[in-house]
Every structure is written in C-alpha cells, then in structure tokens.
C-alpha cells in the first residue's frame, strides 16, 4: 500500500469548443510538456547518481579489467598478455595466504560481533532507565575515526610497552608479539573491527526488535516461556531478515578489510607482518599495485576480490532463499 504521489496523467481538459483557438493551441502545447515532464523527469532526477556511478564506478571497473590483461608498470602500458596475470595469481602462495587471512579475520571478527550485538540489542530492548543514553552509547565507537581507533589499538597491542601485554603480565603471562603470529594478529585486528561495528549492528537489531508485536511476548510469558526462550524462539526468528542483512553487510566489509590491518602494521609496507601474518587481500592488491607499481597484477587482484565478493553474496542469497528470509 502507498500513496500515489505521481502527477495525475489526465488533467480535466477544458472543453475546446468554448475557448478561442489560441488558447487551444497553448493548452495542447502545455499538455505535451506535461507528458514529457511525467515521462522524462524521473529519469532526470535519478540521473546524477548514475552519472557519478558511471564515472567513478563503472568506468574504473572496466578500465581495471583492461589493465589486468596487460603487463602494466609505472612507466605505462606494456604488451597485452591475456590472462597471464590471473594465471600467475592463482599460483602465487602469497595471494592464497592473503585470502586465508581475510577469511580468518572475517570469521574471528564477525561471529562474536553479531552474537554480541544480538545480546546487547536484546538487553536494550527491555525497559531501562535512560534508554536513549544507552542506545546512543553503543553507537559512540562508530563516530570515532577508524584511524584513531587503529592507532590507539595499535599502541594497546604494542609488544614491549603495550597495555594488553602489561595486563597479561599482571597475571603472569609472557609478552605476546601481537604482530608476530597469525592468531594473535587476527584477534587484535578483530577487536578493532568489533569495537567499531558492534554498536552499529546492535542498533539495527534493536530497531527490528521494536517492530515485533509485544503481545507475542505477553502470550509467551503467560505460557511460561523464559526470557532466554523468548529470545531464541520469538525474537531471533522474527528478525531473521535483519540478521541476514547484517551478515551480508559484514561479509562485504570483511572482504574489503584494509584500514585496520594497515594501521596495525604501522610500517606501511602492506606486507602485513614479517611473514605476512595478517596481510589481507586488499593489502596484497595495494602492495602489488602501489608499492611495486605492478598495476597489471594489482588490477587482476582487484578483479579477484570483486569475484570473491560476488561469490560470497551469491552464497548469502542462496542461504536466504533456503531460509525463506525474504518475507
């Protein structure tokens, strides 16, 4: 249902016979403009977005494909080499390493993040004192700049004088070299991502939860369902489309993870640690394209990332269809 706001197509026309000829002519002319307005204007209104998208989205996409088919270095375009860049990429162990890191960090970051967001939203959905304060509070990390977050966390996770290692030292643990091993660096980067995004997902869940009719809970309460049971059997099924939405958004964000690991690395080498412990696939692209100036290879990596996101989105879509979450 919705209100039709479009201009009416048929205006009540004045009877031509009672008007002079000039007025008829004017009226016909006006109606033609009206019709043009009705037909063309909507396209004009949306045109700016598509123009900008064509210039900054579509063109680079196509141009990147073109570059990826060449041996293209700093000095300019080299010979056309077909799919050789892609063939080399599939045999490059550092590429697969970066994929593994990306997926690893994605899983380590996203699963606890969404679970935590769900719990937080569930808590905020209850009656609280100062509800607005708490609801806006979870969003605060969102407004801190990602660079500031990464710099602060980078220092918290410093090897020699970092606060986390100091706290671990209090309970007698050895200093952890947070950039030295895969798991340590994945966990450190995941906490940065979660710090920023948990609140965002919490609010989205909260909004969805508030749309659930209260009488469902009342009926469940009368039937003797516990809070926990209400959460899993009413709340979660009712907000399933929202959960799927957050999973998709997190997947796309996770596959493009860049700023946090780069600032965590600090050296700007884009290698993600001495042994590429936390080099994500976008860092791998940046390293090849903009540090080594191997643009052809970098463009091929960019297209592989694009394909990866397509595949991930497709998998998501199929899961949604199976779950019937589109309702």
């Amino acid at each position, binding site marked *: 249902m919705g209100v039709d706001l479009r201009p009416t197509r048929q205006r009540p026309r004045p009877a031509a016979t009672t008007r002079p000829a000039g007025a008829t002519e004017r009226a016909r002319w006006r109606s033609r403009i009206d019709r043009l307005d009705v037909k063309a204007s909507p396209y004009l209104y949306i045109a700016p977005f598509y123009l900008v998208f064509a210039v900054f989205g579509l063109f680079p996409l196509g141009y990147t494909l073109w570059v990826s088919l060449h041996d293209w270095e700093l000095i300019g375009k080299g010979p056309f080499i077909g799919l050789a860049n892609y063939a080399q990429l599939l045999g490059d162990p550092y590429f697969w390493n970066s994929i593994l890191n990306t997926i690893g960090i994605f899983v380590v970051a996203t699963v606890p993040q969404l679970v935590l967001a769900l719990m937080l939203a569930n808590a905020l959905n209850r009656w609280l004192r100062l509800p607005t304060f708490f609801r806006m509070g979870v969003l605060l990390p969102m407004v801190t700049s990602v660079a500031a977050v990464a710099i602060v966390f980078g220092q918290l996770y410093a090897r020699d004088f970092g606060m986390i290692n100091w706290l671990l030292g209090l309970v007698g643990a050895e200093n952890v070299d947070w950039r030295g091993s895969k798991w340590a660096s994945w966990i450190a980067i995941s906490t940065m991502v979660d710090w920023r995004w948990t609140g965002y997902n919490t609010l989205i869940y909260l909004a969805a939860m508030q749309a659930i009719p209260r009488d469902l809970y009342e009926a469940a309460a009368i039937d003797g369902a516990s809070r926990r049971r209400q959460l899993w059997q009413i709340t979660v099924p009712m907000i399933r489309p929202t959960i799927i939405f957050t999973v998709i958004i997190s997947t796309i964000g996770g596959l493009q993870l860049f700023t946090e690991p780069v600032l965590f690395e600090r050296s700007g080498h884009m290698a993600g640690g001495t*042994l590429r412990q936390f080099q994500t696939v976008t860092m791998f692209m940046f390293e090849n394209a903009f540090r080594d*100036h191997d643009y052809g290879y970098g463009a091929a990596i960019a297209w592989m990332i694009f394909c990866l996101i397509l595949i991930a989105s497709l998998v998501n879509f199929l899961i949604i269809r199976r779950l019937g979450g589109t309702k």
Partner: protein
Amino acid sequence: MRTYLRRGRKRAVGVLLVAGVLAAAACSGGGGSGGGGEAGGKITLTIDTFGTFGYEELYKQYEASHPNIDIRPRNIVRLEDYLPRLEQYLATGSGAGDVVALEEGIINRLLAQPDAFVNLLDHGAGELEGNFLSWKWQAGMTPDGKLIGLGTDIGAMGMVYRKDLFEKAGLPTDREKVGQLWTTWDDFIETGKKFEAANVDAKFVDSATNVYNTILWQEAGKASNYTYFDTNNNLVIDTNPAVKTAWDTSVEMAQAGLSAELRTFDDPWISGFRRDSFATVAAPAWMLGQIQEFAGEEKAGLWDVTTVPGGGGVWGGSWLAVPAQSEHPAEAAELAKFLTNPQGQIAAFKARTNYPSSPQAIEDPAVQNFKNEYFSNAPVGEIFGESAKGLRPVYLAPDNQPVRERVEEALRAVEAGDLSSDAGWQRAVRDAQSEAG
C-alpha cells in the same frame, strides 16, 4: 608516444574537472585566487626531503640573500614512504617538489627516466665537478651524460652507544676503549654477550637489520662492489658472499639474544631511544641527526660515537635533483647548487652530521675538527672521516630497494624466532627472485 597520448587525455580530463570546479565556485559567488608558485611576485620553491638533511639554517640564509624566493620544505621521515610517493609524482607529471632529494637506492631507479629530470649541466652545474668526490659526481649522471643529481652527503659509518648503560654493564665508556672492544663483528657479538650477562634492563643492539645492512655495505665494498644485483642487474643474492656473510653474522647476533628486535623507524624503535631499549646502534652519519631528534634533550650527553666493527664503509647518501615538471627549473637548480656547495655541505654536517661528499668540505678543518656536542662532544669529523677514507662505492641496481625490503622482512622473522635461519634465507632468496623477476 603512447605515454604522451595518455598524458594528453589525462590532462584534458583534469582541465574539464578544474573547469567544473571553477564554474561551481563562480556560481557560489567566490572568486578563488589561482594557486601556483608565485604569490606577491615571490617564487615559492618546494623542496622534498626524507629523514633529516640539516638544511633549516641554509634555507634562511638563501631566503635572506634571494628576497624573491620563498622556500617551502616538505619532509617525510621514512625513506620507504618517500619513494612510492616520489615515483607517483614523476609518473603522473605533477605533485613533486621543485627540488627533490634522491637517496642512493632511489637514484639508480630514476636514472632510467632521465626525461623526468632537468639536466643540471644546462644550468651551469658542469663547472662544479671538482666540488664532489668523483664517484659521487658520476653516480648523479645518466648513461648518456646528463647530470640529474648533485651530491649531498655520504653515509660514512659509526657506532653510537649509550655510555651510562655501558657503565652499568661494567664495560668501558671511553670511546677509544669502546672502539677497541670490537675491531671485528665477532668481537662485537662477544661484547654484547658480556653486556647481556650483566643484566642491564636493555638490549645490546636495536635491531638485526641495522647490523645486517652495515656488514653488507662493508663486505660489498671490500670485494665485489655490488650487493643483491651485479653491475649487469642480474640478481646474485644467492651467490654473492657479501650478502650471506652479512646475513649469517647478524643472525648469529640475533640468536645470541642481543637484539631488541625493533623495526627501524617504527614508533617503538623511535621511542626506544628515550626508553633505554638498547645500548648501541650501527649508524651511518645521516642517522645521527635523527637519533638526536628521537632521543631528545634529556638524553643529551649520554650517547657517544665510536668506530664501527669491521672497518670503513658507506651506507646511504643522497643527491638533489630538479624534476622536469618544476615550474621554476632555473631557480630550483640554483637552490640545489647552493645547498650542495662545499659551504652548504659543511653547514649540513654541523647541523645534522650528514657527512659531506665534497673533498673541499671533507678537508675543511670545520669538518675535520668538528665535535658533536649532543654525542658527548665526539669528534665525529674524525670518526666518520676515517670510515669514509677506505670507501669504494657500491653499485645498486634499480630494483635494489624492494629486494632489500623483502630480505629485511625475512631477517626480522628470523630475529623474532618465527623462522630458522635457513628457512628465512630461503624465503629471502625466493622473495627477491619474484621481486626481481
């Protein structure tokens, strides 16, 4: 031809964009002033440097004697950040300073694009040849005889050390005696073990990579005169004994637990100078100015300089060049000539211990007798002069810098105990091959 066409198209796009922005600005009623190099009849010259060049006083002098010139210095601390930016400026034809500093690892890359730079011989630099050590002069020259870089400093090597930490460890503190502790790198490692055994709350050296690079330059200077690539630009990392010697010695040092395992120019390394994280740093002359800044006033007089183990050698050193994209090439060339003349080099040496590449400056008593107040009045002119004497220039291939970064990463992994020496070496060689391939 192709490049030209592409640049033409890019410029056209740029013009369109600028026109659009200007139109928008005009609509909103604001008349923006056109930017560019001239403001109030003055010419602004931008100079891009990395690390420290010690030019601050010279800029003031030059502006005083050239009232029409305004100097705008831009500085990036780390060379690794500087090079990619400079390469992009040059590739896109805009953004570079009017004068740019080129380090020895950079200039060899850029000699391959002589058109990107002004031939300084066209600006009367030819008569200055006698102002530079001959190899330094030659290294600024393209194969077809264009001069693109005027030499600034050479990275004569010394060892800086913390007197107070040495004293705590029961080691001598007098710079003569400290120098005698380590005529060879094996002596240095032995001294380090004594230092560690004394349980001072600091590591003996800052990093394995600094030691590694120092040894590599020394060994290469003694024998082949090249490092990862031979003079025909073939990758010889796995056959050049200089590389392996440097690797093995620095790994031995790291595995003896002497290193603070810091990444040079990373924040913990920089703050390590204040936090007493390490007692020695193998430092080329140009690093002394940076150490002084990092360690700050409160550590003045605690640092000292002595000779480096293994004899003389040179690491680093730079040139000044004028990119062809400069709008004021003549004025920029004049500035470069001024900064690199013997008097300029002496001033830079006094300010930041960048050791001169001009024989007149090296012979000048102002350099030879110069004592660095910050480093306990160490006679740095004498110490670095000694190191520079035995020097033979080392050839660096265009791809030296990326290969060097890969090898250093592998060395750091070994240093941190994440890889064995053999596995690290294999990784370094493999990465170097893919980088050079």
